[in-house]
Every structure is written in C-alpha cells, then in structure tokens.
C-alpha cells in the first residue's frame, strides 16, 4: 500500500568501502577490491569491498568502551549515526537526546561474532563457549552500543530486513513523529562482511562472474524530522513480497508516472529487471562510484545518493528475498 508520509532529511552519514563520510560515498574514488574466501572453500578467493579501518574516526570509535569488543557492524553503525547527527545538528542546532528516536535495520546482522561463537563451541565444546562473544551475536547489540554512545535512552528499535526494509523503518519514524513521541529520528542500517556471509552469497549463486554482485559492508544513517526546509521524503510503499516482475512493477507505478525512477547502478543485480519492467519510463542515475552490495546498508546509501540529487524521483529498494519497496522523494 502506498503511503503518503512527509519527512525532512536533516542529516546524513555513511561508512562504506569508499571511505568514512557521505562525501566519500558521493564523490569518492574507486573502492579498492580485496579478496575473501568462503568457509567451505578457503582456497578460492572472491573479490569483495571492505571498509577502510585505518583512519582516525575508526580508531576513535574502536577506543570507546562499548565498542572495545564489538565487530565491524557496530563500529560502522556508530560512525554513520554520529556523522548524521553531527550533520543535522550543524544545520539546525542541538536535538534533545531524550527526544531523538533510533531505528536500526540489519539483514545479515552480527555474523562475525555469531560465526566465531558457534565455531568455538563446536571445536572446543560448549564448556568452553565464550561469554565475551555471545552478547555481541544478538541482533540488537549494534544498536544498543550506538544508543549508549550517543546517549539515546528513548525509543530504540532494531528491525530485521534488507534494503527494502528502509521503507518500513522510515514509516515507523514518521509514525513516532506523528504521535509526538520524538522530535527527530536517527534511521540507520549496518552490515558486516564475513566468510560465513560470503558462503551464503555463494550458495545463492550471487558470486558468479556474470551475477553483477560485489559483496560489501558498511553503514548508512539519516536523521529525519517533520517536513520543512530540507529535502523531503513524500511517500513510500513498504516491502511487499513479489514473485513476478509484474509485482515489482506495481510497486514502482502509480505514484506519478512522469516522475523519473532512480537507476540502480549498471551491473548491479536488479538492473536488468528494472529495465524490463520500466519501458518508456524516465530514469535518473544515482551519483557516486559503486560501493557494492551490503543489503540494508546499500538501501541507505542509495537513499542518500537519491536525496543528494535534489530532484523529485521514485527510488526502488530491491530486497534480496523477493521483497521490494519504493520511496518517493520531492525536491
């Protein structure tokens, strides 16, 4: 169901293989390809994109007591959220922390510690399972760390979903704003790359040379508030299941068919489907070099890219599990 919501995008943050910051996402150079192997075939390397961790921002976050033992997913998330909040507060002044909600979206979740914990329990026995690792395996541990670092003691939701989950996350933010529960909401997503995750992508057939899939990691964050003054999110359709291309087309149609539809970067897996279901429809390319496929984080990166254009458009959010959503942006 298409829903009219009006949200102002007050601030953005991004941590990606292109670097730390939204500017790197939009204007950065080419991300350096690295290799990673799956668990079952450690001898076969696959090209992947990783977040650079050598800069001062990453070092500062990793020194925080809450992130001392945390894996990449938590560090990326905290970094992107802090950037987005700084961006929003620079533009509009301080946002009271008790009036700032936080919503996090995760698809693969904290797979690094999950794999390490289970592998340890399997190889050494449950008697030696690690109590230091287990809490970090929980879906909401990354968001808990970010809430603690930023001092957000109000509404905090961890949601499970892929890129299409952004529509539901933003709808929830709009609902909280409408109910008066918050003054602004940090909406973010984060994913980390790890051999067991790569194993899943390989099992799905996504790592083949023709698949147009480059596994990646990172985070994206937005601060949204009630509409006024800044680029506006004007409508959304939450992630619905589709089994045929006609179902996907229905999500992208029916807004205002003269609006251009953002073009997923050429070579990415949904690009061919998009071209097939949108004949004759105006298209608009998203700026910036490729940051790869990091599911929930990619949805956020694409939203930041689309918002940076300052033009009305429809942004498709392709999920990985036959689920898709769309956002309508105004200038």
């Amino acid at each position, binding site marked *: 169901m298409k829903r009219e919501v009006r949200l102002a995008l007050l601030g953005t943050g991004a941590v990606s293989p292109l670097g730390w910051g939204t500017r790197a996402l939009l204007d950065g150079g080419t991300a350096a390809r690295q290799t990673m192997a799956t668990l079952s075939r450690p001898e076969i390397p696959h090209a992947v994109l990783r977040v650079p961790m050598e800069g001062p921002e990453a070092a500062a976050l990793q020194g925080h007591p809450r992130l001392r033992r945390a894996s990449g997913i938590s560090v990326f998330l905290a970094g992107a959220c802090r950037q987005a909040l700084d961006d929003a507060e620079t533009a509009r002044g301080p946002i009271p922390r008790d009036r700032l909600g936080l919503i996090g979206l995760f698809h693969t979740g904290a797979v690094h510690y999950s794999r390490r*914990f289970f592998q340890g329990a399997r190889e050494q026995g*449950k*008697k030696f*399972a690690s109590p230091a690792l*287990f*809490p970090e395996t929980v879906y909401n541990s990354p968001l808990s760390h970010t809430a603690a670092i930023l001092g957000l003691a109000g509404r*905090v939701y961890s949601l499970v979903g892929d890129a299409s989950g952004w529509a539901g996350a933003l709808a929830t933010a709009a609902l909280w704003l409408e*109910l008066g529960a918050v003054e602004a909401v940090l909406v973010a997503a984060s994913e980390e790359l790890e051999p067991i995750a790569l194993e899943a992508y390989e099992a799905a057939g996504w790592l083949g040379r023709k698949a147009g899939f480059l596994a990646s990691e990172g985070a994206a964050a937005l601060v949204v508030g009630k509409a006024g003054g800044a680029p506006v999110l004007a409508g959304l359709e*939450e992630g619905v299941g589709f089994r045929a291309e006609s179902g996907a087309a229905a999500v992208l149609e029916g807004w205002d068919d003269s609006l251009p539809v953002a073009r997923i970067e050429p070579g990415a897996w949904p690009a061919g489907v998009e071209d097939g279901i949108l004949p004759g429809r105006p298209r608009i390319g998203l700026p910036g070099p490729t940051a790869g496929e990091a599911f929930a984080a990619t949805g956020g990166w694409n939203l930041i890219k689309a918002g940076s254009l300052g033009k009305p458009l429809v942004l498709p959010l392709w999920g990985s599990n036959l689920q898709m959503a769309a956002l309508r942006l105004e200038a």
Partner: protein
Amino acid sequence: MERGMRRKVWVTGTGLVTALGADAAATWENLAAGKAGRAAITLFGTDGCRCREGAEIRELPPCPPVPGRAAKRISRASRLALAAARQCLSQAGWLDADGRCADPGLPLSLSTTGGAMDWGEGFFDRAHQGKRSRRLTQVALYHPQHQARDLRAAFGLEGSCQMVANACASGANAIGHGFELIRAGWEERVLCGGYEALAELIYAGFDCLQALAPEACRPFSQNRNGLMLGEGAGFLMLESESSARARGARPLAVLSGYGQATDLFHLTQPAADGAALAQSMRDALACAGIGPERVGYVNAHGTGTAANDGAEAGVFARVLGPGNPWTASSTKAAIGHTLGAAGAVEAVLAVLVLQRGRTLPQIQCEQPLPDIAAHLARGEALPGDAVMSVNLGFGGSNAALVLEKADGA
C-alpha cells in the same frame, strides 16, 4: 480513516503455543494448576553445558496443509508461528473457509531473536565441514524474513511486515507497534506476534553466561539462580474499535497503553534502579490514561536472574505503589523464557487474566524479595480492571503494555 485521532484498539483474537499447551486454553489450565514445563532438552546435545533442561515443546503443532516436500521446509520456528497465528485469526473471525485470511492486505508486526536458528546452525555445520549441498535451503530458511514469508503464504497475505528484534522485549515492541499504527489511524487492523524456537547456539550462549538455572527457575525468590529457556509463539489480532464494531466483532480486551525506553547501562545487565523499566511503565499508564490503582495484575519479565528480578521488583513497588492492590507473577518459571516471543506470549496470558478474572500464580518462589512479597499473585480474583505485561531485553530494551477489560467482554 480517522487519522490524527487517538483511537481505541481492541484485541479480537489470540493464539498461543507453549511447552504447557498447544493453545491458550491448555496453557492456561496448566499454568493455573501450578505446573512447570521443565524437562531435559532433546532437540540438541547439551554435553558440556552447566544446565541441560528447558521448556521444550515435545509435540509440534500440526503442519499447515502444504505439499509433502514443502512441509519439510517449514522450520520449527514457522511451525510455532503458524499455529499461533492460525488460532488468533480464527478466534478473531478473519479466516475464510479455505483457511486464508479474509483481508489479504492485513499487515504483520512480528518479533523473534533467533529466526529459524536451527537451519542457520545446519548451514554453518555444512560449510564448516566443507560440505556444499543444501546450503541455500538452510540459509534461506534460517532468516526471519522467511518465517514472515511462510505466514504470508499460509494465509494469503500481501501486506507489509515489520520484524522487530529488540531481544527479549521484541514481542511487546511488535504489539506496541501494531497498537500505534491503529491508534494513529494508519491501519484498521494488524496481526501482531512473536515466535521463538529453542536453538543450540542460543542455549549454549545463555549457558556460558551462567544465566541458566541448573535446577528450578525461581523468579523473585531470594535464592533464584537463573532463567529457564523455553520456546513458543503468541499472537494477538489488534483492530480499531470502529472497524471491529462495524463487522460485529467482540473484544477480548482493550489494548490501551504502550511505553518503551532504553537502558544504557550495559549490553546484558539492567541498571540496578530499573529507571528505563519505570519510564516505560509510566509512559504506558499515561498512554492509557489510568492510574496504578487500576492495575490488578502484572505479567512480569521475572527471568529468575539475580540482576533482573531485584531491579524489576523495586520498580513495581515504586511505580505501582505499595498501597495499591496490584499482583504480579512471572510465568517464565513454568513456560520458560521464550526470548523474542516472550512479550507476545505473556501479553496473551495477560489478556486471559482479564478475561477469566483470575491472576496466574507465581510458582517456585520460596523466599520472596521484600519489594514484591506482599504482591505475588496466588491465582486469586483479579483485584482491578487493568493488567500490564512488561519486558526487558539484552541491549537495554524495556517495554510495557496496558490492557483493560472491554465493556461487555
């Protein structure tokens, strides 16, 4: 829709599957009789664990009518969710003769912490052993989005779905989200629920934290020594009063309040003063527009761990007041801690307390904590017309729900 107004939200259906019963009635009878579902874990090996017992469901609910091979791909988590959701839709009058939902656009608000973790464990084991067959099936079925797909497929649903994973408060958050969607006029009805299947990784995790009780789970007792893991599913059908009335539905209860707050103290431990829980309870009462004197029963989080129960009992005394008639019990001593399902399972039990007019007794609490001793439920007549269900979770999630008797219910 009456968007912008604050509408009444009715509970028109419930569904429940626990270690003490395949439906709400059976679970209630066993809980009221003071039974506990604790037994040896048979689903996976517990060698090397400090604890070897839990509230495991011995006989899974019947599989939905799907072809033979497809039935094998319905995960344990989905089996629990499908059974509870079916009961809920049926009681609410939303199932047609073919077992499909009469409103295909019905949104879902779901919760879990582990999804179908047993499939994820199988995927890891095969990859770890260098085996490459069946990996896609296992990893695809593991993900929580797949259980949502199972629900959609079983009931013919095409609407939106939100999956909350706020650890052990998730179930209450999923219900709270559905409540707010209806209250704000965004939706007329939402199917809300939580599900959780016992899983080896999660069991080993709680065991290595020494959070599991090696013997009986004793919530709110001074000699408590840990929690008992369980599994199950709970679902509630929430509808706006106006739309439910229009179709002639009757309310089981009114969901009138929801509060949520976050404890920043520690990833796994609540702050000793329970400030976030107190905030969520006060917010829920304010949302409902009632005072604590109306609350007759609280289904407590009551894990049986040292850190949780002391903080929680203190919060109850402060928020609800020592002079008010409230009672409280933790049903986790009997059905176990169902993690991502707990908030939903326990909200269903709170609805049953309202409907039957009796509290659920606290079992296995030989030496009650002073803050709660005078208020522990004994299965007495409900001393009020409102109840609460509260939950805390890893990561600092706290949530509270207020339910009230419906006129004419």
